[in-house]
């Protein structure tokens, strides 16, 4: 904080390389306009970037100029980029909520169209047989009475999701339950595997195997989810059905199992980092007191890293909750409200993925899909925020007794 205010005070843009930072700190704050080399020279050898320090005394004006131009521009550019991406995220946030909001507003009734003969073209070419077939099509008369669906809270919390219906039902309960089912299953399957794998890699694995394992699992995090979904749909579905003998080929369990493949690398990576970050003196102290490697790993390392591991699981939870492609392909997408894990489900993200392309902009259906998006957004946002702020910072201190 002190450094920051100092920088702002002098009004001179400084690069935060370790050298001149050290110089500044050593001096305890320099006066505005004080010659730079003096500040730098007090501690470490003056090196800047890749250019070696010249042997003779530096020309103060020279150095100052270089610092000002390229670094000033670079710094401002980076700041700008950072702010633009931040602004983009915020505007997505605003957009999602703005599109969802009309659901809660009463819509003005669209003026009822007086009966007009629907215009056709080329009907005179249609054969008599075909025309008879057309007269049997009941879509027209049924659609004449179709409504856009009530945008009421009662409809929103009803138990059935049938948005394309003569009386559209926008009950999001089955979708929320569906998302929870798949996500919880995925975490139940992924978390133990990932955490144990992280414990193994950080505490037991010999160096060579750690060097293979860690990058290999981390690469898995970038695995396209559509490929995992396809694998689940074609291979895993048949294997699991033969193995467990359940009724529905595509179901929540299959979705959860496939999703765990996507979540394991995320939990593993963060948990492994947390376990490796446990101070060495703790492990050494434990070993010195006669504890075995196993005892040290399980009763010293793991507890010390608990907040980080917990954060890892939460991050995995957020990823699983928002994941679309895998569930779209592997869960059967039936908006069924049940607690049976072996029945098909329709999740919120899959619903958005499947239906967004079809809705008319501004429709009630459109607003409901955005509402689902907003719920997903809020949920994952909260989870990530909790994982980041609360656990990583506050609990980390408490558990380590710092």
């Amino acid at each position, binding site marked *: 904080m002190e450094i920051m205010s100092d920088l702002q005070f002098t009004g001179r843009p400084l690069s935060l390389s370790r050298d001149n930072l050290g110089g500044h700190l050593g001096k305890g704050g320099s006066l505005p306009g004080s010659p730079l080399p003096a500040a730098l020279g007090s501690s470490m050898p003056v090196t800047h970037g890749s250019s070696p320090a010249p042997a003779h005394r530096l020309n103060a004006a020279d150095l100052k100029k270089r610092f000002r131009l390229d670094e000033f521009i670079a710094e401002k550019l980076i700041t700008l980029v950072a702010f633009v991406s931040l602004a983009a995220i915020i505007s997505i946030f605003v957009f999602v909520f703005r599109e969802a909001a009309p659901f809660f507003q009463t819509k003005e009734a*669209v003026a009822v*169209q007086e009966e*007009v003969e*629907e*215009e*056709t*073209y*080329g*009907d005179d*070419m*249609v*054969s008599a*047989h*075909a025309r*008879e*077939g*057309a007269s*049997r*099509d*009941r*879509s*027209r008369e*049924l*659609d*004449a009475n*179709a409504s*856009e669906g009530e945008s009421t809270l009662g409809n929103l919390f009803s138990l*059935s*999701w*049938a*948005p*394309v*219906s*003569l009386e559209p*039902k926008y009950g999001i309960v*089955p979708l929320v339950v569906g998302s929870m089912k798949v996500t919880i299953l995925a975490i139940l399957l992924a978390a133990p595997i990932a955490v144990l794998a992280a414990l193994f890699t950080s505490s037991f694995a010999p160096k060579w195997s750690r060097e293979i394992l860690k990058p290999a699992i981390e690469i898995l995090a970038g695995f396209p989810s559509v490929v995992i979904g396809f694998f689940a749909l074609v291979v895993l*579905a*048949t294997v699991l059905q033969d193995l467990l003998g359940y*009724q*529905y*080929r*595509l179901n929540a369990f299959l979705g959860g199992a496939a999703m765990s493949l996507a979540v394991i690398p995320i939990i593993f990576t963060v948990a492994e980092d947390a376990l490796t970050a446990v101070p060495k003196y703790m492990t050494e102290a434990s070993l010195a007191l006669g504890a075995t490697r196993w005892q040290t790993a399980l009763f010293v390392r793991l507890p010390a890293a608990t907040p980080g591991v917990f954060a890892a699981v939460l991050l995995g939870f957020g990823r699983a909750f928002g994941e679309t492609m895998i569930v779209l392909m592997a869960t*059967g*997408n*039936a*908006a*069924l*409200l049940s607690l049976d894990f072996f*029945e*098909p489900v*329709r999740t919120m993200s899959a619903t958005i993925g*499947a*239906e967004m*392309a*079809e*809705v*008319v*902009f501004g429709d009630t259906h459109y607003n409901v899909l955005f509402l689902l998006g907003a719920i997903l957004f809020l949920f994952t946002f909260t989870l990530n925020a909790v994982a980041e702020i609360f656990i990583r910072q506050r609990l980390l201190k408490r558990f380590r007794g710092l």
Partner: protein
Amino acid sequence: MQNITRLFSLVLIFGVISVVAEVKITVKGSDTMVILAQRWAERYMAAKPDVTIQVTGGGSGTGISALINGTTDICNASRPMKPSERDKLKQRFGTRGVEIKTAQDGLSIYVHESNSVQELTIEQIRNIYAGRITSWKEVGGSNEKIILYGRENNSGTYVYFRDNVLLGEDYSATMQSLPGTAAVVNAVTKDKNGIGYGGAAYGKGIRELKVKADANATAYAPTVENIKNGDYPITRFLYLYVRNKPTGALKEYIDWILSDDGQSIVSQVGYFPIR
């Protein structure tokens, strides 16, 4: 100097003319019709090199939304446009759209090839999809649970089936939604208790059921003859929708689709001409 100016303006004029002469037509909508539309486009573009036709699928609902949102010239639809959709089109473009019937199609009911059930009445199919009949035993099969497969709700087939077989009722919540006829066929192939619906499909592992209008009627298989005669009870039209009465290049293209040449492609693809 004058020569150069003259040359330049000549080039400019030719450039403008060639851009204007290049006609681009976008077609979007029904997945059922996407192959048909592509064949039409290929044949037509081969005959008229100055016309470019872009065809994409996505579902009838998607196509109609695109027509309303102004992102396509022609919309393919396997169901008629709803009055509410026509009203939305009217709000944007001041027109309620023009409907063109282009082909006929029969909807088949698929089961796994090992299924002992041979035929169903429309009413039985309705009860199965509405969730009132849940075991194959109730329709003369083995004592197994019926697993329902259907299409996603942006599909015209979904809406047509709901209106004409379920008579407007909602599908049972246990129906699994799949993207496209191929996915439905594939799912039924792998599920011996499955049932699905969609356009004519010839796949290993599935069988198309005979359907009868009511308990006393004769059951018909979805064959070319039966659909053309109007004997098979679940047939529908495949439509094109445009915003205004077609003119110019668009009219030429649509007239060609309705001509003998265009209609012969309908039979080649596996649907049935309208005349």
